[in-house]
Every structure is written in C-alpha cells, then in structure tokens.
C-alpha cells in the first residue's frame, strides 16, 4: 500500500513540477519534496515503502509505468512538458547503460555522451538515406555505438580503475574532435536528423486522440516510455541473472572473482559493449526527437552529466536513476528563471543531496531473486 501511494504521489508531483512556471512554485515544490522526505524518515514510512517494494516489485513497476503513461496522456497537449518528459526518459535509459558498466562492473565510463552521440549521428546519417526503416535505425544506433567502442576494449580490459577512466576521457575528446573536422558529418555546425517513422505513423505529425489536438512530442514521449520500460525490464533481469552476479563479483574484487573461475575479461567486455549499445539506442531516439545535432551537444561536460545521474541516483539503482535524471534534466530547466545563476543553485542542490545521502538518493539494495516472495512479516 505504502509503495503504491509513493508511486501515485510521485506521478502527481511530477505533473506539478512540469506545470510550475513561477519561481515561488518551483521553490515551494522543492521545499515540499525536502520536507516530505524528512517526514517520511521520521515516521518510519520509508521502511514500509521499502518492504512493499521488496514484496511486490513487479506490480509496483507496472503501476509506475501506468502512472507514467497516464501523466503523458494528461499532458498530451503541452509540447514543452512532453519534450521534458521524453528527455528525462532518454537520459534515464542512457543512465541504465552506464549503470551496467559503472554500477555493476565498476567500469567508469567518462565518454557516455560520445556513445550517446554516436547513436544520434547514426540516426542522422541513416535517416537521410531513407534506406532502412527508422525503427531499425534505433538498433543501428546502438550497434554503431557498440562498434566504435571495440577499439577501446583492449585498453579498457588491460587497465583498471582510474586508468580505464582516463582512457574513456581521451576517447570522448577524440570523438568530438573527429566530428568537428569531419565534413561528411556536418563538421562543427551539425546535422539535421529525420524524425521517427513507423509504418503509417509519422512522428512529425501530431496524433489526433479522440478528436483532441495533441502535441507531436506525444509520439516521442510514448516511444521513450516504452523503450524505458523495455530497458528497465532487461536491466532487472540482467541483475538477477548469473551475468549480473559475475559483474558484481568483478566490481567487488577482481582477484577473488578470477579465483572463482569468473572471466574478468569477458565480463568487462560484455558490460562495456552492452552499456554502449543502450547508450547508442537512446542517443538515436534523442537525435530524432531534437531533430538537429552538433558536436557541441556531446561534450565531456555532457558525459559528466550522465555520470552524475548514476552517482546521484545511487550506483546500480535504476529507480535512483529515474529520480536523478529528473533532477539533472528538469531542475536546470525549471531554474531558467534565475538565468545565469541557475547552475550555481543546481550545483549547490546536488552537493547538498550527496552530503546527506553519500550513497545516492536511492541506494541499491541486495538483489531480490524472488520479487513475488511474501516475507510474511
């Protein structure tokens, strides 16, 4: 019950935050969230929510998805709110990819935006040719992101910790420079991206729901929601599988993992490629939605933003990722009213959160092998 209440409450809160226009509304909502969190801790409500989640996760996940779709439909007419929801969802999907690398396997990837961008650029190039159906372009975006990470495998596997991180930073810089000097890929000025098309359904046009004029972003919001649900389910299943166990073992102690016969190399390669695949797919859909991309959109600071979603949410915690993606994407936008000071306030908020919750907003719990098990307590 408590869990369902939180899901519904979060949906309502999301609606309020998207609709908030005035500074006092935004500040008020932030204060409300802070106070509600403190109150939940003081009254022991948090423990009940956690128990609910452990007992009935599948049902609650489905409820959350339903609330998300409901939220999207309620906002069907407002372009900007839907653009923000879609952006949050796509960044969330990207953060799941990073979580497989970073949260599970302990591979720090500081080139997240590069792989995200590789997907977007694939969408731009393939969309312009119109040779293959756009739905396949999404997958192609993931495959290209994966393919360009192949040359990185050798240094990633041979190095550990900080050294691997430096390798990815170098790659991120390399990727951007490559785009800027590359004439075919639009150079520094960027490229147009064709919109998403399903058979008989062009995402450029606004769908007409029961005679009600909606926004064309509704298409992208629904698609992003579907994709997020799919990747989320995959992520959870991966976590419960033996692969997830191997990844955790590798992160915690490589030597011990190797002693138990786990191939550290194979596990790292799998995590790195799978994570980049997810990053590429979400990047491809993001490119189609934004419809114009340039190297300036995929810089090192964007990679840091993705890493900060993972850290802020809690390593390996997908639900934390949802909350963190909302904060990282929506908050700077809502603070536009502060103009040049908005990133200052945003940074202070992030530091405050990590000060009081050093393990992230919703730290990862022990893996739940039997999500439908009743504890009886």
């Amino acid at each position, binding site marked *: 019950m408590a869990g369902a209440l939180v899901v519904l409450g979060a949906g309502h809160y999301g609606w309020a935050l998207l609709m908030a226009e005035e*500074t*006092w509304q935004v*500040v*008020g909502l932030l*204060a409300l969230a802070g106070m509600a969190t403190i109150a939940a801790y003081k009254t022991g409500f948090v423990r009940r929510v956690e128990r609910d989640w452990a007992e009935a996760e599948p049902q609650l996940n489905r409820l959350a998805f339903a609330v998300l779709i409901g939220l999207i439909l309620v906002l069907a007419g*407002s*372009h*900007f709110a839907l*653009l*923000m929801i879609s*952006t949050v969802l796509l960044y969330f999907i990207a953060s799941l990819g990073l979580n497989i690398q970073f949260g599970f396997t302990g591979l720090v990837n500081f080139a997240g935006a590069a792989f995200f961008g590789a997907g977007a650029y694939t969408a731009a190039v393939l969309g312009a040719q119109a040779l293959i159906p756009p739905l396949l372009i999404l997958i192609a975006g993931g495959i290209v992101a994966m393919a360009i990470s192949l040359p990185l495998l050798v240094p990633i596997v041979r190095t550990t910790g900080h050294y691997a991180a430096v390798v990815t930073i170098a790659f991120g810089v390399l990727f951007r420079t490559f785009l*800027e*000097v590359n*004439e075919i890929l639009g*150079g*520094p*000025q*960027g490229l147009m991206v064709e919109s998403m098309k399903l058979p008989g359904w062009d995402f450029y046009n606004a769908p007409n729901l029961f005679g009600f004029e909606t*926004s064309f972003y509704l298409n992208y919001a629904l698609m992003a929601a579907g994709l997020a649900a799919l990747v989320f389910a995959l992520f959870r299943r991966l976590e419960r599988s033996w692969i997830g166990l191997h990844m955790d073992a590798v992160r915690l102690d490589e030597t011990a993992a190797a002693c138990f016969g786990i191939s550290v190399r194979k596990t790292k390669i799998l995590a790195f490629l799978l994570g980049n695949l997810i990053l590429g797919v979400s990047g491809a859909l*993001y490119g189609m939605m*934004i*419809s*114009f*991309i*340039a190297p*300036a*959109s995929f810089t090192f600071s964007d990679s840091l933003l993705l890493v900060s979603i993972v850290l802020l949410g809690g390593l390996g915690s997908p639900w934390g990722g949802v909350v963190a993606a909302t904060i990282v994407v929506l908050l700077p*936008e809502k603070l*536009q009213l502060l*103009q*040049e000071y*908005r*990133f200052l306030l945003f940074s202070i908020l992030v530091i405050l959160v990590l000060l009081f919750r050093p393990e992230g907003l919703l730290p990862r719990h022990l893996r739940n092998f039997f999500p439908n098990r009743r504890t009886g307590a």
Partner: protein
Amino acid sequence: MKFNTRKSLRAVVFSVGTSASLLAAVAAQAKDTVELGFIGPLTGGVSSMGLGGRNSAELAVQLRNADPNSKYHYELVALDDECKPNVGVQVATKLATDRKVVGTIAHYCSAVAMGTVDVYHRFGLPMTVWGAVLPDITYGNDYPEITRVNGTMINQNEKAASVMTGLGYKTFAIIHDTTDYGKGHNTYLTQFLTEGGASVVGAFGVTADQQDFTAELTQVKALNPDVVVYAGLTPGGVRVRQQMEKLGIEAVFEGVSGIKSDAFFEGLGGELAEGTMTFLEGAPAEKLPGGAYFLKEYEAAGFDSPPEAYGPFAFAAMDLLIDAVEASGPDRKAIVEYMGGVKEHASITGPITFDDHGQNTVALITAYVAQDGKWVVWEDSEYASGARKLVAPK
C-alpha cells in the same frame, strides 16, 4: 514551529522577486502586458556575449516601458541556450509553445540557430537573430518567421572585397580553415573579389588547429600575391603571419572577423601585426548612428557587465520587435507579416531593411587595421590618412 517555517519560506520567496518587478507590476495595471523572448548563451564559454545581449534587450524593454506613449507594457522572458543545439531546441520549444509570448530575439551561436529555426517555424513564433552570422540561418530556408538584424559573412566579405580592391590590390591568396566558418569566408570572398575585378591566385584549406603553414606559404610565395588572406580564428592567424615573415613574403596580411581580438597582438607583438586588415559586423558602439545614445542609456541602467560587440544588435532587434507589436498588435501572425515588410526602419545600428529571406541587407560592416598594437577603424587610421603605408600593390 510549523507556522514559522512557512513564514520564513514566504519571506525568502518574496525576497527573490526583485523590487523592480514589483514596481513594474504596479505600472502595468494600466496597460496590457505583452511578453517577448530573449535567447542567448547566459552560461558557459561565450556567456559574456549572451549577458551583454540580454542586458541590451532588457534595456530596450525598460526604455519602452518608461515611454508613456507605448500601447502595451512589455516583459522580457530571457532563456539560456548554453550555446548547445539540444538545449537551444529545448528552450525554443518552451518559448514557442507559450502562447503568451508573441515574439523573440535569439541566438549568438550559429549552430544553435540552425537547430532551432524549424521550431520557430513550426509554432509560428516570429524570431529575429541578434548575433549568429551563418548565412544559412536566413538563406537556408523560406521561413517568414526568421529575420536577422546583424550582417552575415556574406556582407562582411562584400565589404572586404570592395575595400581591398578599392585600395588597388589585384591578386589574392586565401588560406582558410576547413570549418563552415573558414570555408564560407573563402567562398564569398572569392565571389566578391572576382566580381570586383580582382583575382584569387590560390586557395588552401587547412585544419583549424594546424601549426605549420610552411608548405602552403611556400606555394603562396611562388604565386607572389598582393594580399594574403587568412580565413579562420586568431591562433591560426598569428601563426600564418609569423611564418609569412620567416619566408619573407612581402604582402598585405588580411584576416576575417575571427582574428579581430586582443589576443592577436598578444600572440604577435605590435610590430608584426602592424598593417593587418580585418573586417567585423557592426562597429564599435560609439561609432554607430545611435551608439552614443545606446551607451549612455546602458551606463545609466547600471548593468554589471558590458554590452559586448553584439549588444547594440540585440537592442536594435528588440526595439524592432517592440515596434512591430506597437504597429500590428500582440499577435504572432501580424508580427510576422510586419517583419516581412520592414524597410528603412530606423535603429541604433542604422536603417534596417529585410530582403525576401528576412536578412538585413544594409547590415553595417566596419574595416579595421592594426596600428600600434590596437585595432583601429580604417577610416580613422593613419593608413587611410596617408601617414603610414600598407605594402603597395605589385
């Protein structure tokens, strides 16, 4: 206890709203409020340009609100595009889908403007560019919503070609970087030079961060042109000039707007830089037709950052937009129509006339020459008066 927290929260909220906006709200009661947008880079590497533009637009709004004859009360909605296309699309969508906003001036960064023009067109929001210079923003589409008050690299090169050929130079060698910026300059400069009767004896593409230009310059030396042009940014310009000296090339060195910075002198020292020509959209604010007025008001308004090179254009664009609202009412379609017919419209940057793509055709371009370690407006320089001489045409 609970009452107290709420009370203090309220106090905080109130202190956030500035007293200025409260005063404005009181004054507004008599007239209908019209919201106008501003988009530019308010954070990040080029934020000084964005802040200067924002302040200048704000100034245009304040001055009009102080005018008792204005029909409406104006309010500025300023948003930050961070000089990133994806953020630009986001804030443009926010502004364009807000029905209260009837028009906007936007963008310093060309790549951002390229990404957002579709958004404005799609939602029918009239947008006037105040800073971005890429020709394609206005010429790459047929959107009636998009207009631009500042010049493009087309205007810049037209002026550059006419000034240089006017001084009697006939043969040019162009070294350009391979970004859109460098390539665009090469294309337009070649076009206008050829039309002006001069000839381009050689053009060489180089990467934006090339260090050694000896190979290109050796060929240039053999061609023996009157003028060596570098179309790119300051670091490349500094190196080309240094290496020209090393190879003993006797020619005028000409740059484009990208080298007009103080860093050019820091890199070269005054002596080598001496006599370098370059061209820039606009003019020093004090040289503009309404520059003295603009600077005086800007000073009086007490902004904490300078207007920068494009501030006057942001002011002119916002002023034009307000004129459009005054003339045709706060309606997007009417404003788009009004903008389509703008001819010889008075502004502080000189009269504005839009062509059929919404580009200001009488955009102001100023020629500069390096003199004693400073960029001096050509007409005021000792070179123009004859006290000093550039390398003579061959």
